[in-house]
């Protein structure tokens, strides 16, 4: 096994193990910490793919900001252990199985699609030779400008909504 293959399997297994821990642990804080671990592992996978900028952003945004806030908020609440990690019940169980099956089908379809045809034959070395950060920036502000701006507006709406909610009666900075 080459060093690259070893690194890939190691990171892939730790990512999946982190993901399994997120759904199987009964303590919400451990689940959130496992999710953070998964995100750091994904960042490491990005590094092995030489997508350094995406790896850094993954660390800053997801692992460093979003999940830290999650963990912090979970610690503020008085959360109890869940009794069991998977709730039982015929209808809900069936829906969960269905959802899991759909997701698995989607993932397998995506993997099969990506390894066949045009995507499967793309040269892996091409990314290393061009400045991937610059390319990403150009793409973001030309091809995907609409999606980018729409996401910005969405975030603004969320921010305004949060301010509106927290300023209502009973909030920490509410009207006296």
């Amino acid at each position: 096994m080459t060093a690259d293959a070893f690194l890939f399997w190691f990171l892939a297994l730790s990512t999946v193990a982190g993901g399994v821990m997120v759904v199987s642990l009964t303590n919400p804080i451990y689940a959130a910490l496992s999710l953070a671990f998964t995100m750091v592992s994904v960042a490491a996978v990005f590094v092995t793919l030489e997508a350094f900028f995406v790896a850094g952003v993954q660390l800053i945004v997801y692992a460093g900001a979003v999940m830290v806030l999650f963990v912090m908020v979970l610690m503020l609440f008085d959360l109890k252990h869940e009794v069991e990690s998977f709730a039982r019940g015929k209808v809900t169980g069936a829906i969960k199985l269905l959802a899991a099956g759909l997701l698995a089908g989607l993932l397998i379809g995506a993997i099969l699609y990506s390894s066949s045809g045009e995507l499967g034959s793309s040269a892996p070395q091409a990314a290393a030779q061009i400045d991937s950060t610059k390319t990403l920036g150009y793409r973001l502000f030309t091809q995907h400008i609409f999606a980018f701006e729409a996401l910005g507006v969405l975030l603004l709406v969320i921010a305004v909504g949060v301010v509106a909610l927290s300023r209502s009666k009973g909030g920490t900075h509410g009207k006296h």
Partner: protein
Amino acid sequence: MGNDVFEITVNAVKLIVVFLLMVQAVPILVWLERRGSAFIQNRFGPNRVGPLGLLQLLADAVKFITKEDFAPDKAIRKLFYAAPVFALIPATLAYAAIPMSLPFMVPAFEMLGSTWGPYTFRVQGYEIGVGIVFILGVSSLAAYTILMAGWGSGSKFSLLGALRAAAQVISYELALGLSIVGVILLYGTFNLTEMIQAQQGPLQFTAFGHTITSAVSWIPNWGIFYQPIGFLLFFAAAFAESNRLPFDLAEGEAELVAGFHTEYGGFKMLMFFIGEYGHMMIASGLATTFFFGGYGIPGITPDELQQIILGWGFSEAGAGGLNSLIHFLSYNVKFAIFLWIFIQVRWTLPRFRYDQLMDLGWKTMLPWALANTIATAVIIYAVS
């Protein structure tokens, strides 16, 4: 890491050396902090153990290591023991990515019957193309340490202190990140080595196709002259990130004892200490790199210095090595000045109240950092 055994070995050793450099600097800094604070407050400080109290560090280390290793009854042991170890990781990883001197050239040589080289070794733990993004990403993980310690201790003081410290770190991370965007726009790169190269030579502004070089040739082309507001914001946010006065709200004897490390003692406490000093060192190293020319020496470029050293009768390789060493010293002088400013500020300013801290971060520094970013972008677009 390298193409052959020799290169891989040297690079691996380099990683360990950078880590040890960081860890070994901590006792010296602690001594400097205690003696310096005593000097500022007209006291003596530790002056009994060894000359000038220098062996106090050794005595402290022995004390820390030999203390009883215990966990509180209600602690969650895994998190409690993991947190101090995790405190070292972000600081070490980030510090290893800061370039400390010119690359060290090793010409081809004979060893064990085969020819090795030539090699170029960078004087830093490892080189990463998007240096800043990596350093910010890794050091943003430091908040987990605080939260893990606070939750794992199983004590209300620890938990409250951890929540407060984590909120502070997250808030100031925004201002810290935004204050650097101006620098990134200015140099057009994420790479720290390229930034340092852009700051060599005398100060010169390029605007509307004209280049204005400063009349005094020893004034260097440092980032501080282009980004003064960026520097102030960066340095202030760095204080908050490393939980130091005037932003040491993580601790508070009256309301939450010692914050998230209330329940820690002995060597585990020492590891938190090293983590905190590590953040100070990262901030000093980054401030040097972004705004003060990194390892560059004012008034002389590395190539000119190389010529001068060659004039002293050194070989090409020897001159390169000496040049690298001199630049390493230059970096360390700037680095030490910033560390001293950290200590001086700690013993000069009173601390903020928590609401003042949050107001300063969100309502003052964040808007100023945004304004700095926009102004820099507009000016760069206008003059080029």
